[in-house]
């Protein structure tokens, strides 16, 4: 794929990936190095491109939902959420309050689970093995709850246009309360154990910084943008569902470096707990779905619906010509934009920082390639 710049006699070319544990997926970067200093970096993507946007034009509106899970398997629910919301807006459907509450609870649990997996994997990247086991223990609880509700643990295929297939299962809330009862303390533990750990700080502080202006220009969103002191969050700035009713803070970093990106995610888990608390307390009675025709045929039109996923703005731009299949679906994925900034972030740094920086971007490769 393409020509890499030819190294001069003082430089050499290092190839990382496509099969490499630090890339967290199938992607490749070509690094031109002078000694151990990165001179230039050329990312190569497309290894897991499945042509989903083309495929969608040949599937009915409902059939697309499980595919959205498989773009970002760590935040299947955020992807379901954005897509289903786009189709509901096309159809002009208003879903019952209870549907909103279940969706927000599922989305925030999904955010915590995704951040926990990031914490686990990033700890491993940085040479810390214990947080991996701790984070998976807690993530297991969320997996269990999501499985009870949807039948799936990772690719959940949970949301439907108009609501859900089932109501929340009995025993869901006691289980959620148990989780909430002890998870707050666990976050503090991870904060001191990994994020504030002297070795971790030494490896991440001041590494891979990007300014707010550059991060915005690269279209970065989510924790990667907020670490650069830009309080941008779809939940607040383009509000959807019941988020306007809920109070939560938007944690930001100061320097936009690797450490800030880590700290922001820890803080976001605390905010997710706050949101969950309010959603449980305000949980309404009502129906878990609104009746929708089996064959969805949205009127001609187009809509862009976005949610704040664990990695940033997850958006679906859908165009309908009035048929049973979409005319065009464009997926706006956070990892795509976040990863595109890598060459700029990494230029001039040491090669050892490559792993620290790539891990801190929390990439999910299938959503880059789609």
């Amino acid at each position, binding site marked *: *794929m*393409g020509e890499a710049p030819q190294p001069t006699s003082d430089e050499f070319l290092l190839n990382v990936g496509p099969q490499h544990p630090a890339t967290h997926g199938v992607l490749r970067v070509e690094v031109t190095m002078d000694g151990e200093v990165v001179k230039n970096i050329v990312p190569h*993507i*497309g290894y897991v*491109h499945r*042509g989903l*946007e*083309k495929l969608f034009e*040949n*599937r*009915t509106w409902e*059939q697309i939902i499980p595919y959205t899970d498989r773009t970002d398997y760590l935040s299947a629910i955020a992807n379901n959420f954005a897509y289903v919301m786009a189709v509901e*807006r*096309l159809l*002009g459907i208003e879903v019952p309050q209870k549907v909103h509450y279940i969706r927000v609870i599922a989305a925030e649990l999904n955010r915590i689970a995704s951040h926990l997996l990031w914490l686990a994997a990033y700890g491993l990247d940085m040479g810390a093995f214990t947080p991996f086991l701790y984070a998976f223990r807690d993530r297991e609880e969320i997996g269990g709850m999501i499985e009870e509700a949807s039948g799936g643990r990772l690719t959940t295929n949970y949301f439907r246009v108009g609501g859900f297939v089932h109501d929340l299962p009995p025993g869901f809330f006691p289980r959620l309360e148990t989780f909430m009862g002890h998870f707050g303390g666990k976050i503090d533990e991870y904060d001191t154990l990994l994020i504030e750990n002297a070795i971790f700080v030494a490896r991440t502080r001041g590494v891979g910084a990007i300014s707010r*202006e*550059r991060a*915005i*220009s*690269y*279209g970065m969103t989510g924790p990667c943008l907020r670490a650069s002191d*830009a309080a*941008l969050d779809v939940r607040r*700035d*383009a509000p959807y569902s019941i988020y306007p009713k809920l109070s939560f803070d938007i944690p930001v970093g100061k320097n936009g470096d690797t450490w800030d990106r880590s700290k922001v995610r820890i803080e976001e888990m605390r905010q997710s707990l706050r949101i969950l608390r309010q959603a449980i307390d305000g949980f309404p009675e009502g129906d878990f779905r609104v009746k929708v025709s089996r064959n969805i045929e949205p*009127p*001609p*039109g*187009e*809509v*862009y619906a*976005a949610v704040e996923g664990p990695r940033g*703005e997850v*958006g679906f*731009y859908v*165009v309908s010509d009035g048929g*049973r299949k979409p*005319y*065009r679906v*464009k997926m*706006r994925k956070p990892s*795509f*934009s976040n990863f*595109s*900034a890598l060459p*700029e972030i990494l230029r001039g740094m040491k090669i050892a920082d490559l792993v620290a920086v790539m891990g801190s971007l929390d990439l999910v490769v299938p959503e880059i*390639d*789609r």
Partner: protein
Amino acid sequence: MSRAEVLEALRARFPDMAARPVDTASSVVVDGMRLREHLLHLRDTLGFDFLTFMTAIDRPTESRLELVYRLFSYTSRVSLMVRVLLPREAARVDTVSDLYRTAEWHEREAAEMFGIAFTDHPDPRKLLLPDDLEGHPLLKDFTHPNMLRLPEVR
């Protein structure tokens, strides 16, 4: 600038601005030759510093390609859709990857998927597709020997 001021300035600059059916964001169609000029103005004067995404829609019945740029303003929280209509054959438009760095990859994807040429693009290689693939998959008339017909849904 506040939200109201931005919307007013937009209406002054684009008198035919309107929301497309369903979507709440305002939508403007601009001349492809003046795309850079408009985006530069939108970015620097009206604060649309964020290119959320850029893509295209194939309209073979009207024999044209519709380019879509979705902008967002960090300061005023306003979204805006900027559209450019191009002929379907030999579609060409200026790159905006120097105005919005994220456009570099989005344009590479639009180029390989729709066969749009971006003048002065810094890195016009394919992004996701194999180098030896002929054709542009997201065009409605794209065919490939390995493409199987999906079963019709009833």
